[in-house]
């Protein structure tokens, strides 16, 4: 099984632990990831609020180069990237005028481009049964709270993936690994990433609610598929604990971390040793 791979800025920068985890996992599972050559910004940060055409043109160009390089399917693990790519496809799909305009701007004709997958869909493609069969080290002590954040399932008309309000797809993956996902209420709430620069206190407040709800429902770790969520819940957990006078010490994993751990990969192979909240003994890796 081979996919095109669109890392986006975060996976090459602040969240390169996520890329390390993805690559280690996919290598073990025998899934080939071919990084799209000459990829550029997905447009998630400034473009989408400043210039609509730019916000479509940037992902459109990425889709075009991926298509030219022969990728029928492309994994974009960062949900902001995958949503931007899907939205560009969605908008050009229903507006031929926009599609022609974008083709002119990016100087490339492009017909839809490759099918864009998020990381959960990659595991669904591999097959949960097959994944379960590959498990060497069942995560039976783990009770993860699966956290989807805002963009993995939203807006539903664009992402067309899982239930936007009550998603279950990540739970199915972690349960296939032997873990017991907890039922909780903040799966799709905002972690505050959009306010990181403007209002850091908002991030602390919102992320605190997420951590508190996960802990209250008996989770001993969180799982996410988003680099931004990971930053807020992991890196800022110490600030949150200080500000609200609580102690969570909840490790925050990428979904691929759990898969890797179940496949027998070590913390240093996955990069989980570089996380801020270190797992407690007996509570996972």
């Amino acid at each position: 099984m081979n996919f095109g791979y669109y890392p986006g800025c975060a996976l090459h920068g602040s969240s390169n632990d996520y890329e390390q985890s993805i690559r280690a996992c996919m290598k073990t599972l025998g899934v080939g990831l071919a990084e799209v050559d000459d990829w550029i910004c997905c447009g998630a940060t400034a473009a989408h609020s400043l210039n609509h055409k730019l916000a479509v043109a940037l992902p459109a160009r990425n889709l075009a180069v991926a298509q030219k390089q022969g990728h029928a399917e492309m994994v974009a693990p960062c949900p902001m990237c995958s949503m931007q790519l899907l939205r560009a496809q969605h908008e050009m799909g229903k507006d031929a005028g926009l599609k022609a305009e974008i083709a002119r701007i990016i100087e490339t004709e492009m017909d839809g481009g490759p099918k864009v997958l998020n990381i959960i869909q990659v595991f669904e493609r591999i097959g949960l049964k097959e994944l379960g069969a590959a498990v060497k080290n069942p995560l039976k002590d783990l009770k993860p709270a699966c956290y989807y954040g805002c963009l993995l399932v939203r807006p539903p008309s664009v992402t067309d993936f899982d239930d936007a309000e009550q998603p279950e797809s990540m739970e199915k993956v972690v349960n296939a690994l032997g873990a017991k996902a907890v039922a909780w209420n903040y799966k799709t709430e905002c972690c505050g990433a959009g306010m990181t620069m403007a209002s850091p206190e908002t991030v602390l407040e919102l992320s605190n609610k997420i951590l508190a709800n996960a802990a209250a429902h008996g989770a001993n770790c969180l799982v996410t598929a988003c680099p931004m969520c990971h930053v807020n819940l992991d890196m800022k957990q110490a600030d949150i604990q200080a500000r609200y006078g609580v102690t969570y010490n909840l490790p925050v994993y990428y979904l691929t971390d759990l898969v890797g751990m179940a496949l027998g990969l070590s913390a240093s192979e996955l990069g989980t040793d570089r996380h801020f909240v270190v797992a407690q003994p007996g509570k996972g890796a």
Partner: protein
Amino acid sequence: MSRIGVFVCWCGENIARTVDIAKVVESVAEIPGVRCAMNYKYMCADPGQAMIREKIASEKLDGVVVASCSPHMHMKTFRRAAAAAGLNPYRLEMANIREHCSWVHADKEEATRKASDIIRLAVAKVGYDHALNPIKVPVTRRAMVIGGGVAGIQAALDVAEAGYEVVLVEREPSIGGKMAGLSETFPTLDCSQCILTPRMVEAGQHPRIKLYTYSEVESVEGFIGNFEVTVRKKARYVDIDKCTGCGECSKVCPLKKNLSEFDYGMGMRPAIYMPFPQAVPARPVIDKTQCAKIIRNGCGLCEKKCAPGAINFKDEDQLVKEKVGAIVVATGYKLYSIGKKQESEKITGYGEYGYGKYKDVIDSLQFERIVSASGPTNGEIKRPSDGKTPEKVVFIACVGSRDNAKGLNYCSKICCMYTAKHTMLYKHKVHHGEASVFYMDIRSGGKNYDEFVRRAIEKDGAKYYRGRVSKITEENGKLIVRGADTLAGVPVTIEADMVVLAAAMRPADGIEELAQKLNVGYDENGFLMESHPKLRPVETNTAGVFVCGACQAPKDIPEAVAQASAAASKVMVTFAANELTREPEIAVINEQTCAACYACVRTCPYHAIEKVELRARNGTLIKYAARVNQGLCMGCGTCVSVCPSKSADIEGFTEEEIYSMVEALA
């Protein structure tokens, strides 16, 4: 040469202000065939009509053109006048020089010219008019009412009381509809069952009402005055004539844990059950999907227990035919399905409210059962999850209604009222409880309606928040309701014990199939279309089929009942004569030139054209042809446009007439 009289009306100032009447009269008088051109200030007034009558007699007119307002206004008036003078009324035409001319133009010179032109067209047409006679259709003075809710019951009783037989068809095992399951009704808080069940019994025992429960309309043939309806009587497995309604069968049935449809899943019922104690008929029915005897030839306890031997496990669906002259559709509504499962892709549901996931998030009809004395909790307010009395209840209005993002753009009209009622009923039973309402607007138009809402707020202390709820989650047995108070501009979080969602009203399941069987239109939401939203509110575009109740639009009980009586009165009007008279301006097919291609049969939207065999006196087949059923044809003209041999035409609007008008303009 024809002898045509033209009568130009001033309509006071309405026409005369913009049209130079004298000039018009002068110019139309010169049209060949025009015998006289007259004018008068109000042609519709008695002296005007007298002038028409007098001229028809004195000038021996064989055609009349009245140039005045729209034929919708006064065609009948003038045709009556013509008939009174001995002229066939269909040889009178109107030229609309008011709505089509004086009202919409400012330039007098041009308007005058246009008025003359319009009259010229009518003169050309009237020259080709010939005498027509109204069509007579026999009428079966017997009605069918489809749907046995409060609207259907009212319509059936009204028609039956007027002396006509009524066939009342109900899909469920009992009549009563949604109203039978309600607790108290706004704005008087009178008990719903107490006011409805006497009407149900009356309908059930009425000598002129034939009741088919657990039955559905299979097909409809025929036309006004002459419908033949096939009704499917679903296998009930209980002989309702032998059964005494003692209820022993339900007591011995071991399969008691089936969700009760009548309680909207809030209570349980056995596999053989009567939907509710006051059911009419008071006869049980066996759910064939649950009965162990029917599924795998087990059990059979009810059969052994039944003293009159009314149980029949070999029962099968039966088709019965009923001849009726008019049909009233009163199939009512269902609630919008709040959860993820939706029948249409354009409706997404409200996953954020956790309906179907959290037991204590219920819809408004489920709440009615919880408050109802006949409900699963005997009227004590207990929440479904653990049977505790909820101390805080949140009511959310407009769930599905007025929400383009979720697919339904209309207002369900009754939710503001019943939500206010719900808060009252709750507070009357749980005095220390707290009732909160999230609403978009309060729409409480109606007699004593707004006073009722104010009472809920001011006397019973319901807390009203103007705003929407974004999400409901469950924590430690509490429902965390997060919403906005847009008047105060703050977010609101309420830790509730129960949440009641006022789901939108939608037409009942199967409405579109039924509408197609009846040839009745429906709108994008499935509500049946009335013939005119203001002036023909219970008629449909198929003659003899009437609508009432919530199948036509969301409405409350008083409105549904009023509409039902209106539909019943329309049925009585239909039955008032031994024969029905219809306008003769319908399609006619020249059977001699008809090539029997049947393009018209296939395209006729009213299924009004049939295939016939033309035979000689000795019985030999001469040819096949198409023939218009005069009872069904609505005169739309579709057949005329598709007929390749030009054999179809519309009386009063023949191709000859239309072309003569076009030529007159050239």
